Structure formats: C-alpha cells, structure tokens
C-alpha cells in the first residue's frame, strides 16, 4: 500500500500518524513545497518576536520522519494529479504513484488588487516560516511597517514586530479589528491594548496603491492618505488552496468538498484541513474553518479512514480561537453575535466575559483575560447542552464541572474516553 500526503502541516502530520497507527508497513510519502520539517505554523509570529527559538519551531520530534519510516520530499511542488493513473506529478518532473492520496494543501494568502503591487522585495505575506524569516532579516530599527489587514494574521505580525521597528500601522477595511471573530466591544478592548504599544490603526480604509520602484516606499490609502512604508505586509486573508483538486476535476466549492469521512468526490483521494469545506454545526452551513485544531482532527480522521476503510467520522466543527496580544488573552468560540447588555456578564478594563445564549443553549462566547476553564463552555456548545438542565445559571458565576448535575458530572469524570 502506498500513501501520498500533499502538505506537511497540521492535517498532513496527524494523517500520517493515523495511517502509521493502522499500517506499520505501508509506504508513506509526504510532499511539501516548504523547506522545513513540520513546524507550528502559528508560531511564526513568536519566531519573529524572538519568543521562540528556531530549535523549538518543530511540530514533532526531530526523528519524527525517520522513526516512522516516512519519505519526506521538501521543496517539492505537487503540480498536477493524474487521477486516472493515480499519480502525482511534481515540479521536478517526478511522478509519484499512490494507492491513497491525501490533499492537505492548506491555505494560500489572498492578495487584494493594489495598484502597482508586484513582488517587490519589501512586500511580505505572513503565512510561512520562510516569510517570517525573510521578514526578520529585512527589518531594521528604522523600518516603517504597513500591515494591510487587522485580522488574526495581521495583528500577530504587528505584535511580532513590536519593539524591533520604528513604526507600525495596521490598515483594515472593516470598522474594527478581527472583524470576523469579534464584536465591537471585544474588538475595542483588543485594539486599545495594541494601541497602547504604539501601533497605529487606520480602519475603514484599504491600501489602494503603492509607490516606489523595485521597493515599495509609500502606501496610498483609499481615502487618499499617503504613508511612508518600507515594509508592506499583506494579511487581508487566506483562501483554500484548491488548485490541484480543481484541475483534477474533484468536486470543489469554495474549498474541496469532502464527506464526513474526509473523502473527496474520488474514492481514493481524501482531503483535510484549511483546503476543505467543513460543516459548521452551529449554522449548518459548509464553511472554510481554517483552524489548527480542526485541521489536525480532520487529518487524523482522514488518515484512519484511508488506512482502515471509512469508519471514523470527523468531529463536529465550529469556529474557535485562542490567541493573545500583548498579554491580553482572548478565547472565543462559536457564533459571536452582537454584544448587548443581555450578553455581557463581566466587563472591566481589559477583561470581558460574554456568552451568546439562544433558545436555552450556549452558541458562542468571548472571554478576554477571564478565568481559565473555557473548554467547559466549548463543551456546552459542542454537546448542545440544554442550559436549563444544569445546576446553576452559567451567566451568574464562573464555570466549573460543578455546573453539571452530579450524575452526569461523575459520568464525565469516570468516562473511559
């Protein structure tokens, strides 16, 4: 049996682990267009800031590939799938045969139309370790940085650069930071903490044009404003990397379409992670949930099913994030909704607890610097627990396992899972 995995991050690595757990002898090849063994992709901002040293970037032990007898092809682009003959054709002209194939191709940065933007040497995206290293080499104490995009990636890039450059300005078309994840109240808490660290925001505008020759020297905003800029980071969002799948005729919507077993429209090809559409259990819609936990769960599911037949269904999915900015810890999950006085239960300087309760069920929450047992809220969303069956009103106090009636609490603690 020959397994080929395209992609060497959360989904790919967890898939490999799962395949190996079922099949000790199979040939496994990972194809990666990056130059490094698997690394914690969200760590690239920690690397940029210096908080994480290169030796701790690895997602797994140094001997991960050799000890599991996995062939790792780095710097290798999978260019085409020959699905009839079950072959992957790579940039080096090599043809790699497979019995089962996993597409774990992840995301690609979305580059918005900006006049005069080419691949100038001081323009960056912020999705790979390579880009983070290139950025770290390029910056100086005098750099004036413009970041297009105040989402998670843009803000983490800003935090990573803090203290290492002269000026950082973050631009976003939305009226608040992390608009897809946060309501206005929570967003303003995060924004003001970041502003306290001399990072400027210009919201409600976008970068419409850049000036300069081989290097960008100014960024022109949609309101006509002009900013000095010797480092431009494009972080307006990501798109699922579906090119291979699309070209091969697999069913693709916004992401690669898979069933609950992570199988694509072709029997011998599976897909997992940021490149697929997941069913969001809260909205019951197919969405791109480009989240690390989701990718690793889906990867594992795909791997198990590739190796042992379709038995394992992917766990239910919904949006969730845990991230910090300058010591402000944000944890959120589910449908955020709009904040109002009925949903905010604790708010003070730099602290917030907001629960979005609909029809006796918790459907989402936002915690900023709040107490530490958020996973119990996540479980209430995940299990669709009826709040009226619980021991106390979750709005009234901090959450604990004591919220469950004794019988179900004991059941959970004694659970064999």
């Amino acid at each position, binding site marked *: 049996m020959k397994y080929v995995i395209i992609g060497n991050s959360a989904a790919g690595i967890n898939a490999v682990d799962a395949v190996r757990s079922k099949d000790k002898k199979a040939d496994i090849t990972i194809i990666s267009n990056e130059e490094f063994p698997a690394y914690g992709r969200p760590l690239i901002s920690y690397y940029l800031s210096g908080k994480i040293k290169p030796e*701790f970037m690895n997602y797994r032990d140094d001997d991960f590939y050799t000890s599991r007898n996995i062939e790792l092809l780095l710097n290798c682009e999978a260019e085409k799938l020959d699905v009839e003959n079950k072959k992957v054709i790579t940039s080096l002209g090599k043809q790699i045969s497979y019995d089962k194939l996993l597409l774990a191709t992840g995301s690609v940065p979305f580059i918005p139309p900006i006049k005069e933007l080419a691949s100038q040497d001081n323009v960056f995206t912020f999705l790979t370790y390579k880009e983070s290293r290139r950025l770290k080499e390029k910056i100086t104490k005098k750099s004036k940085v413009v970041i297009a995009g105040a989402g998670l990636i843009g803000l983490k890039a800003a935090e990573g650069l803090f203290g290492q450059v002269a000026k950082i300005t973050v631009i976003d078309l939305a009226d608040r930071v992390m608009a897809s994840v946060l309501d206005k109240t929570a967003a303003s808490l995060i924004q003001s903490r970041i502003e306290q660290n001399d990072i400027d925001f210009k919201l409600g505008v976008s970068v419409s044009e850049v000036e300069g020759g081989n290097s960008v020297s100014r960024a022109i905003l949609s309101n006509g404003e002009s900013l000095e800029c010797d480092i431009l980071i494009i972080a307006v969002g990501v798109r699922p990397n579906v090119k291979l799948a699309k070209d091969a005729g697999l069913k693709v919507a916004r992401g690669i379409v898979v069933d609950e077993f992570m199988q694509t429209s072709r029997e011998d090809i599976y897909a997992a992670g940021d490149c697929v559409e997941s069913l969001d259990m809260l909205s019951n819609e197919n969405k791109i949930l480009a989240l690390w936990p989701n990718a690793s769960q889906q990867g594992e599911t795909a791997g198990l099913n590739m190796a042992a037949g379709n038995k394992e269904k992917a766990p239910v999915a919904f949006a969730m*994030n845990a991230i*910090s900015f300058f010591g402000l810890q944000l944890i959120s999950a589910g449908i955020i909704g709009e904040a109002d006085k009925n949903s905010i239960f604790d708010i003070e300087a730099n602290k917030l607890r907001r629960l979005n309760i609909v029809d006796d069920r918790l459907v989402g929450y936002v915690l900023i610097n709040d107490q*530490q047992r958020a996973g119990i809220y996540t479980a209430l969303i995940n299990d669709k627990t009826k709040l009226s069956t619980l021991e106390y009103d979750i709005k009234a106090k901090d959450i604990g396992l004591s919220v469950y009636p004794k019988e179900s609490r004991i059941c959970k*603690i004694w659970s064999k899972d």
Partner: protein
Amino acid sequence: MKKIYAFESKCLGCGLCEVHCKTAHSKSKDIIKANKKENITSAIVIEEILQPKAVSYFALQCRHCQKPKCVKACISGAMYKTEDGIVKNNKDKCVACLSCVLVCPYGAVRKSKEGKSVSKCDLCIEVGTPQCVLHCPNDAIKLLDETEAEALK
C-alpha cells in the same frame, strides 16, 4: 492506564492536594519554599459545590483522554501523549496560546501563573507516585485503573 479519580463524598476541600502538587512540581521540592516562594500553579482544580444546606468539594485532575483534544489543538507540539498514555506538556515548547484551555471539556488545563506555559496533571511521573493521592488525608482522590474505578464508581 491508571489515573486519578475523585470521590466527592470524601473530599473536605482542605487543599492539601494542591500544596503537595505544587511541591512535586517545584524546583526546590521543599514544601515551604514551593508554596511560599515559587510561583507554581497547581495542576488540580478544587471545585466547591453549593447545596441548599451544605457545601461539598471535589478535586479534579487531567483525565488523560484516549483522544485528547488538547493534543490535537496544540499549535506548537508541546502537548503530547506518551506511549504510556499520559498527556504531558513540554514547557520548553509551550507558548501559552491556551488552545488547550479552549478545548479541554473538563477545564483541567490552566494557564500557569508565570504566564509562559500551562499547568496540568502529569501523574507525577518524575516523582513516582502522584503526590496529591499520597497526601490526601481522607482518601478523596485515588489512583486507579479503569476496572478498579468502575468497581468504586
């Protein structure tokens, strides 16, 4: 594998388990220094249950799940499951992003006080015996395998 089970009817809420948990995970291994000087977060959560006429307690540690969500959620590879089934956190790799806190359905992983990593039960594998179990004055927490636990449920 063996893990720690709580017996609510026996727990006095005295907090000795926390004291010994901190000591076991301290640099000094000295009970006074560990609890007074070292800034250690206990890997045990003691919960209070308010009843109409009484208060009861239980102590909760990591359940060392068979399919640990924290391991899958971990962005750095710091959280892992050993071959013996123990879920461990490598503090050198942990960046305290709290993805594990986000997904642990038991609320058994917490941010550590120094803010650089998370705190969770490792069954005292470096010390030998779980110190909370050893020092509980009322047998309210026990180290049991699944069969033993089922019998005492």
